[in-house]
Each structure stands twice: as structure tokens, then as C-alpha cells.
């Protein structure tokens, strides 16, 4: 099978397109997940105790939250 210049051009543009898609996806991935979804472990017993004593607040922050399906 013989390759023609036309085939090489097609292959070249295909590779460039794939390359651009990879760049785009990796840039998106950089922005999105690795810094989201985290949490911090705390001394929960102490927090509960301080809430009971009124030193910390037990007020629900109801505005912007969503219960996870997991």
C-alpha cells in the first residue's frame, strides 16, 4: 500500500486535532477537581462540647449546601 501526500496531510491534521483535544481536556482537569471536594478532620467531640456550652454556635448554615447522593 502506497502513502500519498494527501494521506499524510489527513493524518497530520488528525494528530493535531487529537493533540488539541488532549490539551483542552487536561487544562479543564487542572481547573476542576483536584482542589475541590476536600474536608478537614476536626476534634468533633470538642466542637460539640463547645456548642453545648454556647461558646461555638450551632446555627445551621442552610443557604448553600446539597446532600451528597453517596
Amino acid at each position, binding site marked *: 500500500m502506497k502513502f500519498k501526500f494527501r494521506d499524510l496531510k489527513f493524518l497530520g491534521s488528525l494528530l493535531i486535532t487529537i493533540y488539541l483535544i488532549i490539551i483542552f481536556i487536561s487544562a479543564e482537569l487542572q481547573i476542576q477537581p483536584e482542589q475541590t471536594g476536600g474536608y478537614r478532620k476536626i476534634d468533633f467531640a470538642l466542637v460539640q462540647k463547645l456548642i453545648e456550652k454556647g461558646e461555638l454556635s450551632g446555627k445551621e448554615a442552610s443557604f448553600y*449546601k446539597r446532600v451528597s447522593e453517596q
Partner: protein
Amino acid sequence: MSTKTVICELCPKACRIPHGAAGDCRVRVNIEGKIVSTIYGRPSALHVDPIEKKPLNHFFPGSGIFSIATAGCNLHCKNCQNWQLSQRSGAEMEVRYKAPPEKIVEATERTGCKSIAYTYSEPIIFYEYVYDTAKLAIKKGIKNVLVTAGFVNPSPWRKLLKLIDACNIDLKYFDDSLYRKNSEGWLKPILDSLVICKEMDVWLEITHLLIPTLNDDMVKIRKMCKWMYKNLGADTPLHISRFHPQYKLRNLPATPGETLIRARNEAMDVGLKYVYIGNLHGHPAESTFCPKDGKLLIKRLGYVIAENNIIKGRCKFCKEKIAGRWHDEI
């Protein structure tokens, strides 16, 4: 008892918090499937400041502002100047006042302050406390000011801004990778917050701390100023502020005065009308000058107003309108 995991949608980090843990901000805790704001009404700092300290130079200059802050922050800047407050949880703080919103408003009136600043740490993480206090303050004719990094989701930001009169937003870097490396945040949400603030006609001033070797490249400063000019307008004041070594960036020197002056020149050259130099006390760029005739309008010595030549929001000499919120315009 519910042990469901909850996703906090207040800021772009979208913390997925299991029962008994806190968000990245340390103060929003999942208790039985509910997010509890543990620092609501429990500020760790209460102070009366001059408004110039926020800094706000075009918002009722010379007035006092009742300033409050709680523990916690959703960013973790290596150069944080209030890290003892911002990088701790409510439980870790020794001082916690019991000050519900009505007490804050009452104290603001008692101290003769014109406005309340939600400041020092990061008001976004004590969102509900700010919201309830601001609502009460409006009823008493008190203004509300946010001093924030602007790292917040658009929906809560818009809701809160309806109650806010002025913001100073800290645009720390005009570079996404520097935000990630030095503050554990990222740039785009902050740029969005700035634009939303302007769209909603909340008075806006920007602070940009110039840190040697990190963000003192004049090409990038120019790029940032061009973005500001295009998206926020030439009237938005910019405070180029001097860095002092602290917290985890003690290895870097203080910003040389010459660098601050060069950065200011770049910003003015781009077309920004009001560019200040902060933390370099005694420098003429602490003062406000008329963008039309160049005359001195407000002479500042540190946080003290020595002279004010703005009358009804205009230059006393050439009558040019000066952007801002002024005492005699009300």
C-alpha cells in the same frame, strides 16, 4: 441520626464534608447532615478602624468603621497577615465574643461608626453571620463593607451583594498557578466576583499586594491593569500594597518602594485613574489626585485625612466628577 455527606456550595472548593468533619475553611461543620456555621455570632476580632485601613479611599473618607472577623478562611495564603485568626477553627481560638447580629449593629451605633466591615479573615466563610448583620444594619441606616478575597460562587455572591455598599477585593495574583501554589485557590472565580460586583453597582476598590519575586513582574502587572481597565473601568481604584515578610514567606524581603512606584506608573499608563500605594506611609501616592487637572483632592498621612477638596463628589477646582461615595452626596 443522619450521617449523610454534605456538599458546601458556598465557595468554588465545593467541600464534600462527612458527618463530624469541617470544610476546608475549618468553620463549617457537618453535624448530622446539616452544615453548621460554628462561628455564627462568635467573632474573634472586634475593632473600630478608620475606613482608609480597609483600604477604601473613595467611600466616605475619614469615617469610622466597626470591623468584625471570625476564625477561618477558605484560602491559605503563605503570606497571610492574619494567619493566627484565618488559619484556625473557632474551637482553636482563645477569644470568642458572643455577639449576635443585633449586638454588632448596636455597637456600631454606639461607637458612632458609619459602617460595618466584615474583614481581617474572610467574610465569605461567615456568610450567614454577615448576611443577617447586614440586613439589620440597613434598617438602621448603617452601610456594609466587605473586605474579601472574592473566592465565592456566583449565586451566594449575588445574594450577599444586594446588602453590601462597598467591597475591597484582594486580587492577589493575575496568574492561576501562583494562586494555586501560594493561596490554594484559583483565579477565575475571583475575576468573576469582581465583574459581578461592578455589574451590581457595589462600590469596588481592589488591593494588589506586590510580593518580590512572586508577582512583581511589570509585564504581568500591566496585563492585570489592562484587564481591570477593560472589565471594571478606569474609575475603579487600585491599591498597590507593600509586602512585609510574614507567616510562611519570611524568606522574602519587603517590597522596595521603587518597585511600588514602577507598578503604579504602569497602572496609570494603562489608563487607571486612581492608583494608590499602600503600606508606604508618607508617600504622596497615599493621596487622591484629580484625574483631569492633577490637583490634590484628598491629602492622606497614613490613615489621617489632612485635607479634602472634593465637594459633592466633584473636584473643587475643575468640577470633574470623582468616582466614589461621598458624605455630601447623600
